[in-house]
């Protein structure tokens, strides 16, 4: 083996080694292709600004579907000190791909429908068990299994990172670029809402003390806690509304997970109707990621509970009981 002292060639070897590791961890499929395209884009850009040597024997083949990764590449965006910007951006892009995020993106992009649903169901059940069981010796392991769900969508990338931009914008990009994206994200948001409600419900007894602290603290924390309180109250409205679980069609025969999903959908419906009084069913379906059929079943039942009412133009707005929900919203508590 020959010995060469060259920082730029060393950078290239380090770059190849790191992307090889990430592409390998991505497990094949669309996610691996996207990472290969991203690596190719970093390489091209790095060679243009002399960060890497132009001689390279390990370049990645550009993939056929790489345009959505490299779209909008512009070296001028690297500013007056392109080497430093590039170097910092590259490391930031690598660090963004934590194990949780790698698993999240791999599932989102490459899991088939059955596997995707199985992981979503598993994680909601895991998290419910995690908070319902005290002194749970398996908690760490359970949170590991759930970490893709809790932490995987949390990108800390700067906005301007060009080749990695597809990841920082993934909620929109993947939704637009993949046929299943919109459905998958709607399901994900629903599961997040369920997890949040589960956590909120089980810690609500501690809420008053936390609120007392937060009210003495900075405004930003009051807003966080107000949002928290909003969710608690929403859940309490759902729980205490006479006959609501039955009205939702999930009585004794329904599973706990199903009841929670339906409660989450109800909460999102009420929040959307409160935010946009007069909203139509098609608009509502799009906003909360539900089907029109689900809403045609749900809204009349909520109307009987007095939580929503139909407008003359066929839209929906909060009803008398729904306005109780509205009064628990953010900004109402101070």
């Amino acid at each position, binding site marked *: *083996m*020959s*010995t*060469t*002292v*060259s*920082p*730029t*060639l*060393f*950078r290239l*070897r*380090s770059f190849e*080694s*790191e992307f090889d*590791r990430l592409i390998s961890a991505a497990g094949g499929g669309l996610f691996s292709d996207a990472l290969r395209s991203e690596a190719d884009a970093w390489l091209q850009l790095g060679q243009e600004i*002399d*960060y890497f040597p132009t001689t390279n024997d390990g370049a990645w083949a550009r993939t056929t579907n790489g345009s959505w990764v490299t779209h909008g590449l512009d070296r001028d965006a690297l500013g007056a000190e392109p*080497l*430093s910007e590039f*170097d*910092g951006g590259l*490391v*930031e892009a*690598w*660090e963004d791909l*934590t194990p949780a995020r790698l698993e999240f993106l791999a599932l989102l992009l490459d899991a088939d429908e059955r596997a995707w649903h199985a992981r979503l169901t598993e994680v909601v059940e895991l998290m419910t068990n*995690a*908070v319902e069981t005290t002194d*749970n010796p398996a*908690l*760490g392991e359970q*949170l*590991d299994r*759930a*970490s893709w*769900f*809790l*932490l995987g*969508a*949390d990108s*800390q990338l700067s906005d301007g990172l060009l080749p990695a931009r597809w990841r920082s914008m993934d909620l929109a990009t993947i939704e637009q670029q993949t046929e299943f994206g919109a459905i998958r994200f709607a399901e994900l948001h629903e599961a*997040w809402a369920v*997890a*949040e409600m*589960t*956590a*909120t419900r*089980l*810690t609500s007894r501690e809420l008053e003390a*936390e609120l007392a*602290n*937060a009210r003495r*603290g*900075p405004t930003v*924390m009051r807003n*966080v*806690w107000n*949002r928290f309180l909003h*969710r608690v109250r929403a859940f309490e409205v759902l729980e205490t509304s006479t006959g609501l679980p039955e009205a939702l069609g999930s009585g004794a025969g329904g599973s706990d997970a199903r009841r929670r999903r339906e409660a989450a959908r109800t909460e999102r419906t009420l929040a959307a109707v409160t935010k946009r009084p007069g909203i139509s069913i098609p608009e509502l379906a799009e906003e909360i990621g539900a089907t029109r059929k689900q809403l045609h079943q749900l809204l009349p039942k909520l109307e009987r509970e007095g939580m929503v009412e139909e407008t003359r133009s066929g839209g929906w707005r909060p009803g008398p009981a729904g306005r109780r929900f509205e009064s628990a919203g953010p900004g109402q508590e101070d």
Partner: protein
Amino acid sequence: MDSHSSRLTHSHRRVSVEGQNDWVIYLNHDSPTRLVVFVHGFRGRAVASWRRFEECGLASVWWRESDLLFVGYDSTRESIVGVAKRLGHELPRFYPNLPPDLLQLDGTFVRAPDAAPYTELLLVGHSLGGLIVRLALVDAAQEWLESPGTRPRPPLLDAEQRLFSPASGGFRAAGWLGFFQTAPTGLALAMYLRLSSAYTDLQPRSPLLQETRQRTERYAGVHPRDCAALRARILWSNPDNIVESRRYDTDYVDHAVYGRTHQTVCKPDRLYETPRIFVETGAP
């Protein structure tokens, strides 16, 4: 050496530590004399949490004489004690002698592999990372002092500490949720992580915080020469809504920087050189 080294003074590579891949070393292109070790805070990233420290070599000779080791860990999963133990266990691999294999990849060297050992070690911690640094140091001191004559003095005790808003007094009650505001699952994540050991350990006056303080003050007080490394130099952000701003009795006089938040106090840029100067000199 090629012409690029004058424009970018370091090259980086990821190093594997105990089977993990979240430590990164920035290797000087010339012969360095010191190792600066950075330990990030809660929900931080090994390098990104210290963004632009890696560029300080462009502005200062001091940084061109330093290798930079960025320590990564999963703060939402790992225990504070576990990370501190790993830091104490792994650092002797890098200081005072860097393993020569870190300097080359596939036969290409970042610099000539004949450098002398480092003569200085700086441990720089932010927030939770500050507590981890303190714990690693006091563990090293205790193990050495309680085994007289049987162990060599740990190289870790050569270090100087620079802490940015350390969490050694614990997190403020409302501060905890501040970390989760931007996460899509923010509140759920915050509530579930209340079950984690880090949350318990970071409550003000938790057993871990109290023991770390008592042990540090005892060893630094009784063995001021041998345990000088346990005395921290601290720079607080002002305002700081995340951590309780408490120093140990044996620390040096602390400083505060106005108009910087808990998250930004440790990030230098062209208009805010205080972090760079603080690490170099121990004073803002």
